[in-house]
């Protein structure tokens, strides 16, 4: 079997496995099957990535119906990279999952893991497909599964958070659908490559303009771009820890990818960035997100909410890279997409370890915990260094490229803004470290043990990856550059 025949199984394995896992009894069996499915997906994605970078786009027609008519999976460097990230993060967070899920979710786990696999298959499907309508279908698959996963949270507020996400996510998906419907109306095709060929003739069509606007707003919602981010903090804060760790690394990233795919491939960049003031709009929202997200994070007492607001800020960095509309900017966006997934997952895993032992993610309950859970909180501190962007960490690499991209277009003031928001990150990470290591344990607090190895080892694995990708950037920078080139094509002349 060649690689092309294997490629669609990145999506199909989790999709098929979800049907099997739903029926498995008990707790261990569903987890093992889920882990195997996610690992298989990740391995295939890892095999596909070099092929997609080296050989150019791979196309797989479903049911052997040729592309403009049938549904096609079209994989180039950009989506192979995102698919590897999503499948890889799923496998790594699953290693961490069993203890944490057992503590939080009662009864058998078959249904829970089946939902997780559906969410994973949906995210991977969005990433790999070359059909605009198929994007919407997979978006709904992953979103519906995600709402249910969030509602599994122990806190009753999880239900409200899931409901709020459901409303806002549905609005976002509807906007995407309206945009796709407009495109279909004027071009008569849903295949992305086909759309890209037909749209240049319709530059002055108002429906096409409206379609672009609808798609950007719709994906802005799923992406949690600043004014549309309201669903994110509560959804992340009250979801089960495993779900938060997985979503923080994948869901918003895939939404960003969809936005990029439409802006750069379906509508050519010399259209998107000219017909709408996209560069300005995205830059303003990104900077506002960076500041507002970091600012609010500085005053949160619930650590998961703090990290969630920090995610809003980090989404700002990614969108900032996109708004520059240069090759370096887009490379920085892809780099941060990958690196932030590693950083945020490590941080949420560390907080998950704390919650596993203390049952609380409040800053006050963390006081003096550094001496009782040294490994967990050291992991948090090291991942915190990465989110600040200290050299030798992955976070430094992406911020460095973002600075390079800003300097390249002569926007020195952006460099200053990046540094200021990084300092704000120093503050909110430092608050945790100060509470954990420099405050005394409150009197009468119950003694806590270090988190079990089953949780610690995967956490440290992700922390280790943060440092690995901070030192060896061949994979990340190479793939990000290839991804940016795949989206931008030969390059673009901006006015």
């Amino acid at each position, binding site marked *: 079997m060649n690689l092309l*025949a294997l490629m*669609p199984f990145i999506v*199909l394995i989790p*999709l*098929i496995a*979800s*049907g*099997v896992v*739903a*029926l498995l009894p008990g707790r261990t069996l569903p987890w093992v099957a889920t882990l195997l499915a996610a690992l298989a997906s990740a391995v295939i994605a890892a095999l596909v990535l070099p092929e997609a970078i080296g050989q150019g786009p791979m196309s*797989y*027609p*479903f*049911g*052997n119906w040729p592309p403009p008519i049938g549904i096609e999976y079209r994989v180039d460097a950009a989506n192979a990279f995102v698919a590897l990230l999503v499948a890889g993060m799923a496998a790594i967070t699953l290693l961490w999952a069993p203890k944490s899920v057992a503590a939080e979710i009662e009864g058998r786990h078959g249904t829970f893991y*089946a939902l997780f696999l559906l969410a994973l298959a949906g995210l991977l499907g969005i990433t790999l497909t070359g059909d605009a309508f198929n994007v919407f279908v997979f978006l709904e698959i992953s979103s519906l599964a995600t709402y249910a996963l969030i509602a599994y949270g122990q806190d009753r507020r999880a239900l409200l958070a899931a409901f709020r996400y459901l409303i806002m996510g549905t609005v976002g998906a509807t906007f995407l659908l309206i945009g796709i419907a407009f495109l279909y109306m004027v071009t008569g095709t849903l295949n992305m490559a086909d759309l890209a060929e037909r749209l240049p003739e319709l530059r002055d069509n108002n429906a096409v303009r409206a379609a672009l606007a609808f798609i950007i707003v719709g994906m802005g919602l799923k992406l949690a771009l600043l004014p549309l981010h309201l669903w994110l903090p509560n959804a992340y804060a009250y979801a089960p820890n495993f779900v938060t760790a997985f979503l923080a690394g994948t869901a918003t990233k895939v939404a960003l990818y969809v936005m990029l795919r439409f802006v750069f491939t379906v509508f050519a960049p010399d259209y998107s960035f000219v017909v709408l003031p996209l560069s300005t709009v995205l830059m303003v929202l990104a900077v506002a997100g960076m500041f507002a997200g970091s600012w609010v994070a500085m005053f949160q007492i619930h650590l998961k909410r703090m990290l969630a607001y920090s995610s809003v800020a980090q989404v700002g960095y990614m969108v900032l890279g996109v708004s520059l509309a240069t090759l370096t900017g887009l490379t920085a966006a892809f780099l941060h997409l990958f690196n932030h997934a590693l950083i945020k997952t490590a941080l949420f895993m560390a907080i998950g370890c704390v919650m596993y032992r203390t049952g609380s993610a409040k800053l006050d309950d963390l006081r003096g915990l550094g001496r009782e859970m040294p490994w967990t909180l050291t992991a948090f501190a090291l991942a915190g260094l990465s989110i600040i962007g200290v050299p030798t960490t992955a976070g430094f690499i992406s911020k460095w490229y973002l600075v390079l991209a800003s300097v390249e277009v002569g926007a020195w003031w952006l460099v200053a803004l990046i540094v200021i928001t990084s300092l704000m990150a120093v503050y909110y990470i430092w608050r945790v470290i100060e509470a954990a290591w420099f405050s005394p344990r409150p009197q009468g607090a119950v003694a806590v043990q270090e988190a079990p190895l089953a949780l610690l080892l995967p956490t440290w694995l992700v922390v280790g990856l943060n440092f690995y990708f901070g030192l060896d950037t061949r994979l990340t920078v190479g793939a990000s550059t290839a991804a940016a080139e795949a989206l931008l094509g030969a390059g673009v002349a901006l006015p």
Partner: protein
Amino acid sequence: MSDNGILRIIARFLIPLILLVGLYIQFHGEYSPGGGFQAGVVFAVGWILYVLIWGLERGLKVISLKAMYVLSAAGVLLYAGTGLLGVLLGGKYLEFYPLLESPHAAQQAGIIVVEFGVGLTVATVAMLIFTLFARRRSEWIAALEQDDPEQRP
């Protein structure tokens, strides 16, 4: 509501027809309007009408909760398995040509099996959703009847 004669007689008359229409839409889906989704919903409606008249307990004797779970997953697997069969026989995923000799019959057979999977899942999931809500409501009413202020939502 089974003590109301009009409801009972009309339901008795309607339920077989509804189920029949469901099956009709199912098995004519490949060349006429319809298909697994619509058929599944219509078929489930027949069962839901039965439950509305004779109660959830009797409805669950027709098809148990566990059977719904199993069948809903089985439908997905039937769909996915048919797709996989195309790959195993040397074609693409969801390609039906390798299934049978005649290309026309192969496409028809493939789409019928796939749509049957869809119908099975949609019908059982619709029943499942209805059952879960109906149960919740009966628990809620029981709690109200107990008049326990703590249990009152």
